[in-house]
């Protein structure tokens, strides 16, 4: 057992921190949402910077331009970027899809796509959910019918994060429509070029007033056959892994991000008086900050332990779902406490030192409510923890 980092790992951490000091994320323009990790922000320029450093392809095989670094290094990178509130939402989402290309793609596809993804110049979006296929993904209706020279795609995707700033969709579609075929044996993944005729991307404005998610309509889109990932009708076998990546990696930085915000809140409490008393001396504010710090750290440790298990190649059953539930439950409580600490001043419009914290806290409070549903609802996730993790009967 060992809870420290090696000298090499600490050097890696310093390298990341130095980079962030030299290229402060705040200085880069964002194309979507406003500042901070994951909660909507995406900066094309910053993702390219990460690509230039070779950090997007950190864990890939050297053959495809990667550095074959272990998962733990990637986890450290994610945490440092989260702490610095780097706007790389799209980059994060890209990670899991890039790994699927590595795993499922033909040699041709790998050679065509991976270099661009590694540089941060090719951005993928996850085209998965549909109006009638959220938690019940197997109910999806978008079809991709094989023709002589292409797959003919018709359908609609919803909640496609950042499709409007992405290049290719990681499209889950039904390639077998015979009703006798079980649903799980009829779905494929295609890489969908957004520029193809028939593809329309429309904004979905979230309750934050942000433009992060999109609806994507596909009307007789002709996707060349070479963009089929892996074997036809076999995508569901790989589905679990994608979702695993999505759930785990998407949530992995969340505790560290929340720790950064906790630090900001501590500072805020030390500088703000209410009824003449410093908030930092108010027992109920202290309790909220302490409870947050404890829960966030416990959550963070569990996610590290899961990442470690993945790194060791240990078989995982429920861990991805657990990481989603833990991080999202934690987020709901944390941002609620954050709002309570700010109190009515959460809505104050003053242009002072804490204006950004206040404005963002309102956003994060709304966003975290959505997180609980994203990547599968927490209810379904809990079902998976119970059935896959504890062997309780499935329905």
């Amino acid at each position, binding site marked *: 057992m060992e809870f420290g980092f090696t000298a090499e790992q600490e050097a890696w951490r310093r390298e990341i921190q130095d980079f962030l000091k030299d290229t402060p994320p705040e200085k880069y323009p964002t194309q979507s949402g406003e500042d901070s990790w994951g909660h909507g922000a995406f900066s094309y320029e910053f993702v390219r910077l990460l690509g230039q450093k070779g950090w997007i392809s950190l864990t890939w095989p050297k053959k495809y331009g990667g550095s074959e670094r272990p998962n733990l290094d990637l986890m450290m990178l994610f945490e440092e970027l989260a702490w610095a509130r780097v706007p790389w939402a799209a980059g994060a989402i890209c990670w899991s899809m890039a790994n699927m290309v590595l795993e499922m793609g033909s040699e041709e596809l790998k050679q065509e796509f991976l270099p661009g993804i590694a540089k941060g110049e090719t951005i993928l979006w996850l085209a998965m959910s549909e109006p009638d296929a959220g938690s019940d993904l197997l109910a999806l209706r978008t079809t991709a019918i094989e023709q002589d020279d292409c797959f003919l795609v018709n359908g609609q995707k919803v909640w496609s994060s950042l499709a409007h700033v992405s290049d290719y969709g990681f499209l889950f579609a039904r390639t077998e429509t015979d009703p006798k075929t079980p649903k799980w044996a009829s779905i494929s993944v295609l890489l969908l070029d957004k520029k193809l005729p028939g593809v329309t991307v429309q904004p979905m404005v979230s309750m934050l007033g942000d433009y992060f998610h999109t609806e994507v309509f596909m009307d007789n889109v002709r996707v060349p056959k070479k963009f089929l990932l892996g074997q036809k009708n076999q995508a569901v076998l790989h589905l679990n892994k994608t979702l695993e990546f999505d759930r785990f990696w998407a949530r992995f930085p969340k505790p560290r991000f929340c720790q950064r915000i906790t630090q900001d809140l501590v500072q805020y409490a030390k500088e703000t008086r209410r009824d003449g008393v410093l908030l930092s001396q108010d027992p109920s504010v202290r309790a909220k900050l302490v409870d947050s710090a404890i829960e966030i750290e416990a959550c963070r440790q569990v996610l590290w*332990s899961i990442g470690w298990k993945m790194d060791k190649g240990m078989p995982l059953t429920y861990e991805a779902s657990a990481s989603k539930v833990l991080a999202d439950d934690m987020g709901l409580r944390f941002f609620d406490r954050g709002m309570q600490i700010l109190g009515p001043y959460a809505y104050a419009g003053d242009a002072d030192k804490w204006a950004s914290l206040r404005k963002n806290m309102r956003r994060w409070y709304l966003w975290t409510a959505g997180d609980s549903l994203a990547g599968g609802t927490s209810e379904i996730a809990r079902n998976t923890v119970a059935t896959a993790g504890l062997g309780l009967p499935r329905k």
Partner: protein
Amino acid sequence: MDFGLSEQQEMLKKTARDFFKTELPKTLVKEIAKDPKGYPPELWKKMADLGWVGLVLPEQYGGSGASFLDLTILMEEMGRACLPGPFFSTVVLGALTVMDLGTEEQKKAILPKVAKGEIVVTMAIAEPHAIYRSDFFEVEAKHVGHHYTISGTKLFVTDAHVADYIIVAAKTKGGATFFLVDAKSHGVSCKLLPAMAGERQCEVKFDGVKLTKADMLGGVNRATEYLDKVMQRAAAAKCSEMLGGAEQVLEISVQYAKDRIAFGKAIGSYQAIQHHCANMLNDIDGCRCVTRRAAWLVSEDLPCAMEVSLAKAWMGQACHRITCLGHEIHGAIAFQHDHDMHLYFKQAVVGEAFFGTSAYHGEVVAKELGL
């Protein structure tokens, strides 16, 4: 970063689990709960023979020289088994302190006997104000000539009534000092408190107990800062016991959910029950991580104030949630004394109360946060 156990730790865990499964059925645990002594001497002897009582003591004193971390792995199994008795007091509070602070003479007098399971040691810290801090001590060791005279009342002293030695943390001029007191000394009286679980806690009265400098452990005023270390070790070890208990609660609850039929189905098929189980598992994963990290840091003698307090605060609240859910899943049957669930429910209460509640440790975390 490595969350795994070593091969020896895995083996220690397995051996302990098998041992307690045969040697400590819950019927025995409940019998002992009624016995004022609070522990079965035959079982104590067996654990000593297995080398467990002396696990962390240096080999020269009859121990195995294992690490504190190894000890906590063993204590996870003790918590899982609801082991009653003075293991915690003797090893964590007593022997480890003597190991650190004792003179060679003191170590030779105490440690080999501890390893052989021949004596019980404990420590008296809290007083009626129920605070584990030396600046609040009223029990005083007055220096008169060549003697020190201790008077006052210590409370919540575990296993004092069966102890051979009680390490007393008393106020001295300029701080606090440890005294290694023979429990049979004139002026020492112990009375059992009406406590909750199998844990035996005492009121210990010191009525002009006469001691000399030779009875000091670590020298004058050494307890002032060493007490922090005792508290951290005790908190980490307590978390380990609680962790083992929590894991057992999850196991028996899941098994019950699979076995119990209502309305024609196993109750584990209903989503409400599945979510309870999932929530327990998620909580326990958090418990395991923070507890093991705290234990590792203590074991490595690294700075650990934040991590230990974080773990203890977390465990108190998490084990409350977990044991409540365990009861909820079991329904009425676990409300019976006959059932085992309440042993863990009560163990969680004792765990939260001892060596700093969540509120106490929360304050430590607050300070570490800079508040």
